[in-house]
């Protein structure tokens, strides 16, 4: 049976159909979950996709964390369920306290949409267990606020606990320690700025996101 993935949609989210389409193409059973829903049903994994939840007004992700669905997502994560936040979804997860740190404005204060090279730093997460440590993936970024920041203690923890999941080969936004993605202490919650779904088909220029999406769809996705 294919893996059931819920893709959370806030008003203003815009990457949900891309996520459903690319997971579906890999055999996943993806469906959208409206932000007003509080019952996640029998999902195997949750994705919070990119976009501009609630217009990114006030601060990216700041309003979205109060949506009813986030309580269920938090409970799902607390029970060890895989939760992946991409781009705006990463921002929402940091606002909701499911991941440490925050995403500030890009160093050069402009939106940036282009391919970047991304190094996989750990494979003990639900998004990377089918990738290779040290492999370099070409995946697009598409954000204004992707500049990862955290305090020194958090950074030390992220490093010591092998929780930096991806680093930029050539930092596009000023992120601390070239961080492009991190995971939670339990390793089941992953946030990253780049969009693996945009690199899911060679005709789009790269299929390097496929191993990541396949990781999420593989039943053994909860790491040891």
């Amino acid at each position: 049976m294919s893996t059931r993935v819920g893709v959370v949609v806030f008003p203003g989210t815009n990457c949900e159909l891309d996520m459903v389409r690319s997971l579906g193409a890999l055999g996943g059973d993806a469906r959208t979950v409206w932000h007003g829903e509080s019952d996640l049903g029998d999902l195997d994994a949750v994705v919070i996709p990119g976009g501009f939840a609630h217009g990114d007004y006030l601060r990216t992700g700041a309003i979205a964390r109060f949506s009813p669905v986030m309580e269920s997502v938090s409970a799902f994560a607390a029970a060890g369920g895989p939760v992946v936040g991409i781009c705006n979804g990463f921002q929402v997860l940091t606002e909701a306290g499911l991941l440490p740190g925050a995403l500030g404005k890009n160093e050069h204060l402009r939106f940036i949409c282009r391919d970047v090279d991304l190094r996989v730093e750990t494979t003990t997460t639900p998004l990377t267990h089918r990738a290779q440590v040290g492999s370099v993936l070409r995946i697009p970024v598409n954000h204004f606020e992707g500049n990862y920041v955290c305090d020194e203690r958090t950074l030390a923890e992220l490093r010591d606990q092998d929780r930096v999941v991806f680093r930029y080969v050539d930092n596009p936004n000023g992120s601390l320690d070239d961080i492009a993605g991190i995971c939670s202490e339990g390793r089941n919650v992953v946030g990253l700025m780049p969009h693996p779904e945009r690199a899911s088909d060679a005709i789009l220029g790269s299929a390097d996101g496929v191993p990541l999406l396949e990781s999420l769809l593989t039943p053994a996705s909860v790491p040891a």
Partner: protein
Amino acid sequence: MSDTGLNNDDMFSGVPLHRQLGLTDEEHEAVVALLGRAPSDEELAMYAVMWSEHCSYKSSRTHLRRLPTEAPWVLVGPGEGAGVIDVGDGLAVAIRIESHNHPSAVEPYQGAATGVGGIIRDIFSMGARPIALMDPLRFGRLDDPRVRYLFEGVVAGISGYGNAVGVPTVGGEVMFDESYRDNPLVNVLCLGVLPQERMVLARAEGEGNLAVLLGAATGRDGIGGASVLASAGFEEGDDEKRPSVQVGDPFEEKKLIEACLALLEAGLAVGVQDLGAAGISCAASETAANAGAGMDLDVARVPRREPGMTPVEVLTSESQERMLAIVTPENLDEVIGLCDRWEIRSAVVGRVTDTGRFRVFNGTFDALGVAGSNPPPPGGEQALIPDSDRAPVADVPAGSLGDGPVYDRPLAPPADRDAVAADDPAPRLRAAPGTNDDCSNELLALLSIPDIADKSWVWHQYDHQLFLNTVVGPGHDAAVLRLEGTQRGLALSTDGNARFCRLDPRTGARLTVIEAARNVACTGAQARALVNCLNFGNPEHPEVMWQFSEVVDGMREACVALGIPVVGGNVSFYNESDGSDIDPTPVVGVVGVIEDLAEPPPQTALRPGVSIVVLGETAEETGGTQWARSHGLDGGRPPAADLGRAAALHDLLVDVVGRPDVVAVHDCSDGGLAVALAEMAITGGVGFTVDLDAVPVAAVGSAGADSGDAVPTGALCFAESASRVILGVEPSGVDEVLELAAGAGVPGALVGHTDATEGAARLVARRSGGGGFDVTLDAATEAWRRPIPDAVGADLAPRV
């Protein structure tokens, strides 16, 4: 001030109200004659805005009729929210282009942002999901700080709105010329896809049906945008026009897109129209007039953003992110429920009648038989009190607002036309030192002209990938999108060339159309439809109207010859500042269909070890070229626009670019052959060696006379003769490609090859008698990539 909010007291200004609103005395008399009485202030305000140049096309309509608009695949032609064509498999494509020039000149971020918002609404009001935007932009010179403010503001506005609303920006153009210093051009094209059965038109059909206003509340922003801002030129003190610019909210628009598409998918709307120029006056009266019906509108039921707004302000407000849906009373609850679900406001504001009249009430008609199902309007209970005896504040024939005056304005060619044409730059370019022997420095200089230089600083700020359709994005001849659910693809290009149009508007327009069609053909697509955005100066200047008429004729000739119907367009007049008109700038968008998009089509980048083939002939055509203008020479005639040659080349390209041995394709336009070759080398990171003697040449130059001897080296490199394309071909495929070209009657030749490997490369082109160019790949790359980031003080993005 009267209680209508209008300053209708002549005592102070001495200027009658109708003139303050932009109506001429004759137009005012026409309103009086058609109503049989003096208009109320509300009526006058509506006529002023609906009969403005921007809304009524009163100066252009008589000319636009000459454009060809029909083809078997055209489902909806000009005159609706968007043109719609059949693209097979039950799918249709909706496409439209508009200008937002004046708002962007006054407030660049919001002007550009709301231009994006407006064009997107035109597309989804037809039932189509907007999937792509393109932005053809024109500014003054980048060494002017105010120009840089406009440039950066417009780009930020497009990025800020387009990215957040969730429609990818897949291409466009950015050009710089002194002509646009105070009056930048911000044109926006949007393309959408729809299942044909979901298509809906702006029709208010069925007496008793309800007009429901969806989306944002109405404020005082954008009042008189169409009449005050869009239909007059710029003079000193125009900061006062800033309140006429609207403010955009992409989040509201995103919700509105989803709600409207859900509404149409469920078959809940009889008709839909967006509120754009002239706001609710236009949307309500036009939907009624389109259906031959009438409409009663109650402005008191329009949700307001602020208290104290007068009926005139509500009627003419251009607040963004609003749509008018016509629904049956039975469906109203479902419509309201659906709007609640998407968290957008909905309010019943009117009712379709069979009177043929557009009547406006101010809180004096009953709740349309559906009392209680609608939130009480601002103004409270009083607005709900039935009082059908009270007179409407406006009562006019519904069709009369959209049926404005038509002017056949005087035309006259510019007095200096012959002198400009005779001022051929070719002799001086022949004589100029360094232009005909070693052209290396000329090439580097042309690569760094902002028009030609790399624009990735601009489009890296645009989300160009959303929806996973973008097979070829910005920075190429045309964008290519896959058409979800089919094997087919769409190719899309926007082009304009004021350099040629100012010398000869008719030929310039032909060249503009064939360049856009050629860009689309470079992807292997068949061109299917064209939309135009006609940016001109003051139509009251006979020279401007002459340019306009010539452009329409040139466009007609090219579209007829190439079999491309015009499915929509927009006219932007009054692009002038301090009495000086912009150069005539028709911009076109062409969409084509690729039948089998299994692989990405070949793109600009060359690769090592391939042969270089040139298709099409080069003549000593230097008038209006980037090369001539870089030497301060701006006279002469544009290149010849041979439509038969263009058609033959485009047909050939559709056959050739699908071949697996054709690995790179690039249109040859600004900066000529040398610049096109350099761009192919830079993007591919590979050097080349070209024999310029092998380039196919035509003996007749732009002056129309036999040039007597061979085309000089400089012209060979930099002339902008039309209908030329460069191919990168696997060596084994060259003979067959050239045979196909010969069979199609297209001159073609093998001119050289790329290096066998990447790295330490040079771009070399030589003639047997000496001359040509020889530059390092690094120098060319630097010259091409640096200018835009340097001008705005940005770092270069790393190459990936």
